[in-house]
């Protein structure tokens, strides 16, 4: 059977070109890979190689012809065993149809919220079992140690995590208990060791990668987003990346702009990641255990200032918190204040102040930024009709912006006032003590925002 050679497209946007030159003539034998002609577009001149083998029976387009459409038959080859004269009588056939279908209607989208919504469930019951009063630092260490005892594939790596016990002493005692095989000091090479951790996760291990602070994870952003978050999807579900990236996020104290930044909205933007931000020691322990057990890449945003704060934590080693559930830390009826990480404490302080003024605030601790617990917030707004969002990061395109949009979509009819955002000022964080304080949200700012939405 004779073979039609078609005018090729040399780029996704090429629709036609000039057939500049033939390198073969009727009767020539053609081999795979042999250059048969040259074509030109406004961008380039390129050689066309034969794929099929045979003998040239017809040249259908003359040398020098302009505007030859892609997929036009340009040449007929007689296949092996076929006579050239028979093939010369063949009528060329263009391909039936372009393979790519027209744009399809979008598949039924999930809920309008861009991040997958958390599953509905009742409010978290208060823990009634025994508790112990420990710091956030100890809670994080205990969570890692308990999970590492259960699963030999879990290991911790990062700068200074082993012999130094962590730059912020989070990994106290882990080297002594688990040895240097499982508690690994890395060189100061965030991009490299993050990629190495992702490779280890692809290879079946469950790494916990500590960043001394998330500011340094910017060096590793490509491996976190392009390699860890996307590969499960890009492999059609074949590859898995069970890894936890953890470390302090946000402003510490007087370390200036390069070391003081909240990455919550950066990571929360990315499908394929889970993003958690604990406030209390119980959050830290329950959520870190959940993060380690989760089969997906998890960003775990801690806070340096909280490390030394103490909270009651359930003693039960099976205590774990669900990913994707916010917690109502203080019930109230007049205004909803939504915060995460260190700002939960500021919000609770503000609520106490507001209570003195006769405003009963409900404080929600988000805990999970992706997935996002829209339902708990909407239910609260249905009760209070007013919402203040609080975050340490910058306001533009921040978590508060997302929260405002979600309320427009899900709670518009219940709002009695526009959502008010309290956020860090839109400036690099300054070093001077007075300026730093002015740039970061204080409980007084939250009180003022609550007054505004309550028309007080």
């Amino acid at each position, binding site marked *: 059977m004779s073979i039609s050679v078609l005018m090729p497209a040399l780029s996704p946007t090429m629709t036609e070109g000039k057939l500049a030159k033939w390198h073969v003539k009727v009767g020539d034998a053609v081999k795979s890979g042999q250059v048969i002609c040259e074509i030109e577009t406004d961008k380039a001149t390129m050689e066309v190689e034969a794929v099929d083998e045979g003998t040239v029976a017809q040249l259908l387009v003359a040398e020098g012809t302009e505007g030859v459409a892609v997929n036009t038959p340009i040449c007929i080859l007689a296949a092996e065993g076929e006579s050239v004269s028979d093939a010369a009588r063949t009528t060329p056939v263009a391909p039936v149809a372009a393979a790519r279908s027209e744009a399809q209607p979008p598949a039924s989208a999930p809920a309008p919220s861009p991040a997958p919504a958390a599953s509905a469930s009742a409010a978290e019951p208060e823990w009634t079992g025994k508790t112990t009063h420990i710091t956030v630092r100890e809670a994080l260490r205990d969570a890692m140690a308990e999970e590492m005892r259960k699963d030999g594939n879990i290991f911790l790596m990062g700068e200074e995590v082993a012999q130094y016990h962590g730059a912020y002493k989070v990994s106290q005692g882990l080297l002594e208990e688990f040895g240097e095989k499982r508690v690994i000091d890395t060189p100061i090479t965030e991009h490299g060791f993050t990629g190495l951790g992702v490779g280890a996760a692809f290879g079946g291990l469950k790494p916990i990668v500590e960043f001394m602070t998330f500011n340094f994870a910017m060096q590793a952003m490509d491996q976190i987003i392009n390699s860890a978050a996307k590969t499960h*999807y890009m492999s059609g579900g074949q590859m898995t990346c069970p890894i936890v990236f953890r470390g302090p996020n946000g402003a510490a104290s007087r370390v200036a702009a390069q070391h003081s930044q909240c990455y919550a909205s950066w990571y929360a933007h990315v499908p394929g990641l889970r993003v958690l931000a604990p406030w209390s020691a119980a959050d830290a322990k329950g959520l870190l255990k959940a993060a380690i057990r989760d089969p997906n890449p998890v960003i775990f945003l801690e806070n340096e200032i909280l490390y030394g704060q103490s909270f009651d934590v359930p003693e039960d080693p099976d205590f774990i918190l669900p990913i994707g559930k916010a917690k109502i830390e203080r019930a109230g009826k007049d205004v909803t204040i939504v915060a995460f990480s260190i700002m939960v404490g500021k919000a609770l302080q503000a609520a106490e102040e507001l209570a003195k003024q006769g405003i009963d605030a409900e404080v929600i601790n988000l805990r999970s930024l992706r997935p996002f617990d829209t339902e708990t917030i909407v239910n609260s707004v249905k009760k209070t009709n007013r919402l203040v969002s609080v975050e340490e990061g910058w306001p533009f395109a921040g978590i508060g912006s997302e929260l405002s949009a979600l309320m427009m979509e899900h709670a518009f009819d219940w709002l009695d006032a526009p959502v008010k955002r309290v956020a860090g000022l839109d400036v690099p964080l300054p070093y001077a003590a007075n300026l730093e304080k002015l740039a970061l949200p204080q409980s007084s700012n939250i009180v003022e925002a609550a007054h505004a939405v309550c028309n007080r």
Partner: protein
Amino acid sequence: MAKPAVKPKVESLPAKSKSPPKSSGPGDNSVSAEELKSYYRSMLLIRRFEERAGQLYGMGLIGGFCHLYIGQEAVVVGMQSTISEKDAVITSYRDHGHMLACGMAPKGVMAELTGRSGGYSKGKGGSMHMFSRDKNFYGGHGIVGAQVPIGTGLAFAHKYSGGKNVSLTYFGDGSANQGQVYEAMNMAALWKLPVIYVIENNRYGMGTSVERASATTELYRHGEAFGIPGERVDGMDVLAVRAAGERAVDHARSGAGPYILEMQTYRYRGHSMSDPAKYRTKEEVDKYRNERDPIDHLRKRLIDAGLADEAALKAVDADIRKVVNDAAEFAQHSPEPDPSELWTDILIGA
């Protein structure tokens, strides 16, 4: 079994580094006729597959970026002959040859190129992003150099788990200047990880020649700062690749740490399909095609040594052509992914 009279050539520059002494590779008796024929077949499969992929691209059936491996076939085929199925392989986006060499099905690879549900990534990855857990092929990575720390992490996992498996981590001369490559090499040497860095030096990172991109062009010496041994290999000669590959794999498997092989090779086609290749002369390309072609070279060896005749090789050609035709047919008729696939494989258990 018939033994071929072949003398593999290992081309290496006088090493100023403390690279281990270069042996001359396996003796004449170390390669069987069957092995030689299987290398011929594997290289030809890659060549014909890639030519067909180029054709389907020209017909608009393959979209986006498409980086063909034509000319470099001896590298993956030679290296694959030195490892077992349990060893890991990872590479960049010029990956079709690696997948076929790993034994992944031509139909599944071609259908991924056409973005169909029968592709290895269900049509969601495309040319640059395919994987096979089954064959221990870990991609297919689109960001230049990103696969190098990942491949090093696979070696870390091997060592952690106590096995003897190694990681073949391929990258190009273009990646060889990426910072993360050296971060990974440092850790690999520091922790003695069983990784073989195979630098496919095809002389151009997109349109920029090695000489215009690298301050030092002896890429096999780029691990010297970390004490990683390296050697330069004629990547157009499958047996030279095999001989060097065996040394490197033995080194890594023995627990001695990483090893670098710089494969001197050449791609006949452009960087990607839309590359007019104005940065090199036609004479240069023709010289490689006509004088250094790895497939022609092996074909001649087989015939000269009396291990195969024209008819036998023609039968191989015909067989390969059928495999590739079937793959192309499958890739055009496999349905596009169902719209519901938009929302799958984002997170596990979500």
